[in-house]
Structure formats: C-alpha cells, structure tokens
C-alpha cells in the first residue's frame, strides 16, 4: 500500500471528540448573564459598579484594538516571492514595501542557513546581506573559489516573473560579491515558461531546471535530487560535459579523417593501378607505333624542315594512328592526371583541424551552408547579368536619350529689328 493511502487510513482512524462533548463544553463556558443569582434563588440586577467592572474588559479590548490598528501597517499589499538558489535554496516572501514576511527553506542546507536567523520584518537588502554572509561563513559560497554562482528570480503571487525586482536583487547580490571581494556570478532566470510546471514538480526554480535539463539533454547524469544540486555545480557540470563532448567530437573527427584519408589514398591507388595496367598493355602492344610517333616528334623538333615536310610528317602521324590507339593512350594518361588532381583536392579539403570541425559541430547556429552561399552567389550573378543585358539592350536608346537631353538647343533666331521705313 502506498504511503498516501496508509496516511488516509490513519486519518480516518483518528477520532475526534463527539459533538456532544463540544456542546457540554459550550454550556460550561457560556457567558454569564449580567445578573447575579442570590443565595435564596432570587435574581438581582447587578449594581452600577458591577456594570463598570463588566465593562472593563470591553474597554480594554477596545484600547488594544485601537493600538493594534494604529501599529499594524494598513495595507501590506500583495506579497512577492524571491527565490534564491546557492545551493541552499530559499523562498523569501516580502510585501510591497520590501519587508520580509517569511522565509521558506527549499532543502536541508537552507534550513541550516536559516537556523538562528531572524530576518522576518527585515528589509530585503538586509535579508540578502545576512543570507550571503551566512552562506560565506558556512562555506556555501567559497571565498577562494572562482565559480560561485547565485540564481535569483522574483515572482508575484500569481507566479509571474517580476523582471524589475529580479534585476534589483541581482544588483544586491552583485554588490555583496563585490564588497566582500569574492568572485561569483549572479544569474537571473528568464527562460521558457513551458518548463515551469516540470520545474515546480521537481521543486526547483525554472532557470535551475533549464540548466539541469540542458545537462541531461547533453547526456549527463545526476546522482542526487535536483533540489540538492547547487547552481555552481550544475554550471560546472555543463562546462565539463561540453569539454567532454568537444574532445569526443575531436577524437571522432580525427578517426573519421584518418579513415577518409586512407579511403581516398586506397581508391586513388586502385584507380591508378587499374589505369596503369590498361595503359601498360596498350603501350606494350603498340610499342612500334609509339616508337615511330616518337621518331616523328624528334624530327619535328629538329626544326629545319620545310612546311611541306612538316605537313607530310603530320599526315604520317595521322596515318600511324588510324585505329586511334595512340589517342586512346593519350586520353588514358590525361584521365589519370585528372584523378590525381581530384584526389589532391579532396585531401586538401581535410586540411581543417579537428578542433575547428568540432567547434562547428558545437556551434548552435552553425556556419553558412554551402547551399546558402551558392544561392547568394547565384543571385549576384543573376543581378549582374540582368544589369549587363539591360545595358546591352538599351544602351543605344539610353545613349540617344542622353544625347537628346544634352544636345545644345538651337539658338532662337534673333528677333527682327524694327522694320525699316
């Protein structure tokens, strides 16, 4: 049976006193009438002095009520809640005038910090300062550490984040760090509100939950309750996990690179060997033709030939390769060179260091993709082309238009003088 069911059963078993006991008690405690019973059974109205005596408690109560009314602030307004997570985690309730109404520990560490502390009715500044000091004294904030972290968030009664107040509290903590010369960061939680329910179910602030979720999404594991993980700890775990992922990515890339290099080298080797085998066969089988071709080339290089002789030699070369074998061999060699060039290009693309590749992998935005870059390039080319074609098509018209505009206007014929005579 689950604990809740057991507890329900226990509560059901608990009997309170019956209503008759209560009624009996009420009769015992019923207020006396303002009359006095005489020994002889007669009833006599109380005298003036006795009335005054009876009025004393009422008057006293009135005076107290007036005093209380004067002393109690008239309107404390709606409460606000401040969540502080160091890892002692607290919720501080305070009224609109900034006075602490109550402090609630979220975990055992917070209970330790709050023991023997009287911060109710203090101002928020003072409460923050006292909590900070106690956390330093108890070692929750390390004076020698550089990774101290405090998470603060302020919410109103409806649970909405109050960013202005969060910022104010952030400044208060920042001031504490600064005046006490302790290194640390103050984090304010402004994150996806869809996580709020999950965070609430785990009893942690939404920002802390977001950090924990990030860590777990990265493949991290926590061996304790979320509320017992300090904000410093979770940030440090994320940092370490990032490093681990990065180094793993570097190792993976190095391994992949090695494999790729081997693959490329092997494939190149294979292609070349195959090509060489074919070429070798062709070369051996056609060695006479090649020798003849070589001789023709040497003759041509000699240079002391007439045009007619050169023409004849070229005709001979042509005739020598009527079956196209020599052309095929030349093509094969050219193809082989192409393969070598392509392999070199591929190998060069692996020149980025694994770290650069890992950074790209970790970068959430990522580099501009090739597709995007070529799109931009294409657009640019289109624009240039359209501009130039417009120019070509219209240049004559535009030229005429310009000439028309700037053409010196014909001088008006001089006005005729007064007619003679």
């Amino acid at each position, binding site marked *: 049976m*689950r*604990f*809740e069911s*057991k*507890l*329900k*059963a*226990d*509560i059901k*078993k*608990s009997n*309170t*006193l019956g*209503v008759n*006991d*209560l*009624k009996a*008690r*009420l009769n015992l*405690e019923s*207020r006396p009438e303002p009359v006095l019973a005489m020994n002889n059974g007669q009833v006599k109205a109380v005298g003036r002095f006795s009335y005054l005596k009876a009025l004393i408690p009422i008057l006293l109560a009135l005076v107290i009520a007036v005093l209380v009314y004067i002393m109690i602030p008239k309107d404390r307004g709606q*409460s606000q*809640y401040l969540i502080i997570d160091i890892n002692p985690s607290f*919720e501080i*309730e305070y009224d609109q005038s900034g006075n602490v*109404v*109550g402090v*609630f520990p979220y975990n055992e560490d917070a*209970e330790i910090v709050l023991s023997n502390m009287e911060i109710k009715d203090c101002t928020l500044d003072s409460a923050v300062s006292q909590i900070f000091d106690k956390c330093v004294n108890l070692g929750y904030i390390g004076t020698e550490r550089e990774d101290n972290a405090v998470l603060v968030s302020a*919410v109103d*009664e409806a*649970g909405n984040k109050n960013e202005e107040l969060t910022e104010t509290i952030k400044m208060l903590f920042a001031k504490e760090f600064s005046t006490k010369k302790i290194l640390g960061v103050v984090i304010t939680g402004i994150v996806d509100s869809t996580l*709020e329910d999950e965070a*609430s*179910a*785990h*009893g942690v602030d939404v920002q802390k939950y977001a950090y924990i979720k990030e860590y777990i999404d990265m493949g991290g594991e926590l061996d304790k309750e979320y*509320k017992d993980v300090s904000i410093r700890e979770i940030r440090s775990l994320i940092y370490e996990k990032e490093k681990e992922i990065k180094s793993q990515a570097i190792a993976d890339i190095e391994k992949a690179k090695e494999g790729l290099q081997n693959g490329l080298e092997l494939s190149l080797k294979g292609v070349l060997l195959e090509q060489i085998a074919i070429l070798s066969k062709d070369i051996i089988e056609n060695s006479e033709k090649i020798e003849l071709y070589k001789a023709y080339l040497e003759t041509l290089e000699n240079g002391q030939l007439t045009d007619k002789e050169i023409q004849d030699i070229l005709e001979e070369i042509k005739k020598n390769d009527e079956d196209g074998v020599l052309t095929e061999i030349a093509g094969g060699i050219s193809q082989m060179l192409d393969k070598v060039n392509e392999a070199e290009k591929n190998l060069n693309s692996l020149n980025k260091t694994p770290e650069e590749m890992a950074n790209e992998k970790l970068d959430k935005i990522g580099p501009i993709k090739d597709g995007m870059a070529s799109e931009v390039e294409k657009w640019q080319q289109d624009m240039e082309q359209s501009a130039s074609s417009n120019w070509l098509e219209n240049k004559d018209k535009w030229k005429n238009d310009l000439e028309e505009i700037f053409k010196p206007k014909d001088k008006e014929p001089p006005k005729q003088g007064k007619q003679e005579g």
Partner: protein
Amino acid sequence: MGLDALAPKIASHDEKSFEALYQKLNKLVYLVCLSVLKDEALAMDLCQETFVTVWQRSHEFRGKGYKSWILTIAKNKSLNYLKKSQRDVLDGQEIEIEDTSVSIEDKVALKMAIEHLSTIDSQIVLLRISGMKAREVATFLGLPRGTVSWRYKEAIRHLEKMMKEERK
C-alpha cells in the same frame, strides 16, 4: 449548503447548523492542530477550543472563506499554545498534559507525517490528504500554489523512503 452560508446561522446560535459544521470540519481542524502540536490529545483539546471560539465569535465573520477563517483560528490557537508552553517551561512551570487513552502508536503513517516533517510540510501533507485542494492549502498557509504542490510531493517521497527503510 456551502460552509459560508452556515456562518450567519451559527452567529445566531443555530445548533443544527453548528452540528453540521462540526461534522464537516472537525477532522480538518483537528489535523491543523495536530500538525502544529504533534500531540493527539492536545490536538483534540485545541480542536474543541477552536469550535468554542467559532460558536462564540461567528458574528464577527464577514464575507467569504468561513472554512479558511476557522482553520486559521485553529492554527493560531495551536501556535499560541506552543509559545505559551515554551514560555512556561522557561519559567520553570512544567506543562501537565492530561492523560488520555488516545494513542498514535498504531498509526504509523500519521505518526511519521507529524514527527518527521516540518510544521509547514506536515500541514501541507495532512490537509492535502484530507481532501483540501492545493489552491486552498496555498491560500490558507500563505504559500504559492506551486510551492505547495512540490513540497507535498517531496514530503510524501521522503516519508515513503523512510517507511521503506524502517521495513528493512
């Protein structure tokens, strides 16, 4: 009939309405007292005192939230009792608690809930188990609703863990 509607009738000392109120709320009032006092006999006593006050002072109640008003009386009475008893112990006067036949020993879960939880957590657990909604408990204790939900879950988890360990 809602509890708020009973208030004016009880204020004019209608016994039937008072009985109806007692039947509906006595367990809840008792649990509030128990969560603060952590003693069944005392809780019963303070529960009765609460209803005596309700009988005598219902004419002072206005508006809505009669249930919350009654539970607040129970809580304040229990807290005042505790403060007074602490003062009396400091002054050298020992508090004599009436010997009653009530025993909590046979109610393991209830005993754990009141002994191993803080007063606030104990109140949250007992009130939620007794059927009060998280929103009502939050209003009554002056805590955010989310806090009540997660503190309840945490407390139950803690108690379940303890119960398992005790079984071992």
